[in-house]
């Protein structure tokens, strides 16, 4: 099972994810992140504590990105360390989802890219 801890910083929710994202746990990642983008303004998924991530994890992240996009929210990932994060490059995930190297950079992306709608509650 994956473990999640949540930080709320202003209008941004940060989910720290720990564990292995595979075919068993990817639905849990999808559920938790979908809840977060539905209930918050913008979401940073901090994956630095993820020790395995396969295609089912990629598909889950893409599904959450789709929901975020539909709701006018931003989803920014903080990449897992190498070699776990290398899969993002192999499947060119950056074309679909914002990926940061650190939480600090993720906040900068949100500040730069955040849609104006984020300034008022839904």
């Amino acid at each position, binding site marked *: 099972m994956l473990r999640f801890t949540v930080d709320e910083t202003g209008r941004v929710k940060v989910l720290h994810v720990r564990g*292995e994202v*595979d*075919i*068993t746990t990817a639905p849990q990642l999808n559920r938790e992140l979908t809840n977060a983008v539905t209930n918050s303004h913008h979401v940073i998924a901090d994956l630095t504590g993820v020790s*395995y991530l*396969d*295609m*089912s994890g*990629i598909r889950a992240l*893409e599904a959450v990105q789709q929901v975020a996009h539909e709701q006018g929210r931003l989803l920014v990932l903080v990449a897992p360390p*190498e*070699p*776990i994060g290398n*899969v993002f490059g*192999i*499947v*060119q995930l950056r074309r679909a989802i914002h990926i940061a190297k650190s939480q600090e950079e993720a906040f900068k992306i949100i500040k730069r890219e955040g849609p104006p709608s984020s300034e008022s509650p839904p």
Partner: protein
Amino acid sequence: MCDRSAFGGKQVRCNWQESGAGPLAELSDNLPWQISLRLETDPQESDVLRATRKIVYAAAKTVGATDAVAYEIELAIGEALSNAWLHAYGGGIGIIELDAAFDGTFFTFTVHDQGAPVTPLPAIPRELPKKGQGRGLYLIGQLMDEAEVLKREGKGVALRLRKRVR
């Protein structure tokens, strides 16, 4: 204690006690070996798949693979096992067999299921496919030095994967 010269008909250096290296690392300098696993998937969760890919990670580390290479092998095998589970058995119960052979330099893996024959046989994509089918196979191809889908008589699909570990 170090007289293993007749083991497998090959000369085996046995200075691990002096060098401080483990006996497995020393033996695997010379001796090819292989493991065969036969696993039954579970319809509820895939702990058995997770356990199997961890065995493969441990095998790669045992022969001196770096953490990164061992992880790439684990991910490729994990992906192959997930594919077999989903596509051969629809995420249900079925048998998957994994053979892992080490020749001193390369690991060669075969992952085969007993599902319905697949026609036409999928190929390992050389370019990243669009969303949908094929990206798992593409990832496997990128992680390994060689990857191919084997033609099999009778049932199932077999993937043959190869990677240099040292």
